[in-house]
């Protein structure tokens, strides 16, 4: 019978094919992951560039004098694209595969620096140009349902009020000294915590309540 000849090898043959199919699956998964990371890398770089350009423009205005008006629209663009990157980052952050990898940590760090830079710039801008921004610092925790929910509430808020600037910061991100600096400055203990125009609010707060705070 044909069976006798192959019987011995059947388990081996099946195992080899299985390993191939399994590996193909891993490849499909990692190709998709790489695509996502690449896309993220691109937007982090873009933000970096925009923040820097904004910084230079502000220095220019400081030194040579100029119109504060022209800069208002710039602020909006920068803040929007930083917020978008933040959203992408959070989505990836909640997926186990990315957290902890060097690439991801690098991106997260860069993004965070851009955010703090933007925060400082805005504060400066408020002083030099006499404008007033509604800035919300959002301290969150990774994989923390209430933090995720707060994130969605803030997304909703910016959709309604594009002028509001939201800077989200992973409060436990010890790799970046800037985070410790901010956490100490505002004495952050739990997540989510919002700093709305220098006022501290702990725990989840709905979109309507944030609006009340701002107005």
């Amino acid at each position: 019978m044909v069976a006798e000849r192959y019987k011995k090898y059947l388990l081996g043959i099946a195992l080899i094919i299985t390993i191939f199919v399994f590996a193909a699956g891993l490849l499909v998964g990692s190709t998709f992951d790489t695509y996502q990371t690449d896309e993220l890398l691109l937007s982090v770089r873009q933000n970096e560039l925009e923040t820097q350009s904004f910084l230079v423009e502000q220095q220019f205005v400081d030194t040579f004098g100029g119109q504060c008006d022209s800069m208002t629209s710039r602020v909006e663009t920068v803040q929007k694209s930083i917020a978008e990157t933040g959203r992408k980052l959070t989505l990836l952050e909640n997926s186990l595969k990315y957290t902890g990898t060097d690439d991801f940590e690098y991106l997260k760090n860069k993004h965070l620096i851009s955010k703090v830079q933007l925060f400082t710039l805005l504060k400066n801008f408020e002083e030099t140009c006499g404008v007033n921004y509604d800035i919300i610092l959002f301290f969150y925790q990774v994989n923390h349902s209430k933090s995720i929910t707060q994130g969605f509430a803030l997304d909703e808020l910016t959709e309604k009020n594009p002028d509001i600037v939201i800077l989200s910061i992973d409060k436990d991100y010890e790799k970046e000294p800037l985070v410790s600096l901010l956490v100490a400055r505002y004495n952050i203990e739990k997540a989510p915590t919002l700093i709305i125009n220098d006022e501290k609010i702990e725990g989840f707060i709905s979109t309507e309540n944030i609006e009340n705070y701002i107005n």
Partner: protein
Amino acid sequence: MLELFIYRLILYVISFIGLFMAIFWISVLYIEEDSLEEETFEGKPPNVSILIPAHNEEDVIAETIESALAVNYPKTKREIIVLANACTDRTEEIAKRYKEQGVKLISIKEPGKGHAVNIGLQKQKGEFTVILDADSIATHNLLEVLLPKFNDPKVAGVKTSIKVWKPNNLLEKLQWFEYINTGLVHKLMSILDVLYLTPGVFSIYRTDALRKVGGFDENILTEDIEIAVRLLHNGYKIKSSLAAMPFTKVPHTLKGYHSQRLRWARGFFATMLKHKEMFFKKEFGLLGLFMLPISFIMPILVILSTIVVAYTLLDIVFKSLFVKLLTGEFFYNLSAPVLDFSALFWTVILVIFGIYVLYKSIKLFREKAFYPVAGFLFFTAYPFVKSFYWFLGAIYELAGVKKVWRGDVRW
């Protein structure tokens, strides 16, 4: 983090084993397609005894006896014995009507199918013994196609490929798919000599082998699985035939289904425990090293995958509800933590394999009907139902719940 790590680990392990099993059986199917052909019996027709165990089967017994009488075989070479087991209805009366056609009747007071068949085994004269359940219907060619399997003196039992008799409701249609699918898998198992069951619907045994191993076990709920494993344990082989296709009437109510499946699961578990020394033993070849252990752990894997799927769905539902509660808005992109493209890829491959095997089965069973809704459920929900019964059976057996051979449903 740990929770997600465990989630992924389970997902990957299940995917790997699932793929391996599918690829293994498809390889057997591919390599052995020629072995699906049937042979003819060598030598003179032997004496065959057809035993029909029946417990309160007045509705179906006549049809079963008539189908046994209609099997193509020299009349002098076959005997038909109805084993009326603790019957309180008209079963015996109906069976007596066939006396003139040579149908014998044995009344057995003590209930228990194993017990009934053992009494039949003592009284019958054939070199080969057929067990034909009273809820089943034999087809004309059965003996012609089954007997050739015994050309190999090591073969002690041959099972048939059972079809579901006129499926009407969804439950019966699901079982229609199940019987067809397992029919092909059992054939493939038989090619590799790892088949370990001979269902009572219509199975044929070498009588002296049955007597040598001590007849049927009267304490196990599925004496038809146990006897097959015991024959294998004693060095015999079990074969399956795709040419022989008797019919069986499957439970058409959930209650009937529940009681049948619980009995099967308990019987399976008890049989595995009884023959546990066969596991991982080299002398039993593929059966001991691979088939028995994998059959035993497969339901655990299906249960684990149920948990994984449930976790994924609940994660999405609960997170969405949680956010809805806090913000009044629904967000759908919450499933990000559990989206895995590798797993998605493997699932697609597995579904393709499943459809291919089912297509092959339907072709081999020469079936023309097709039930799309039942077919969909067979792939999606049915494995979980089967695994559920596996667990229930294990719990009942381990807890030592009293065995009831029959209730108000068929055995």
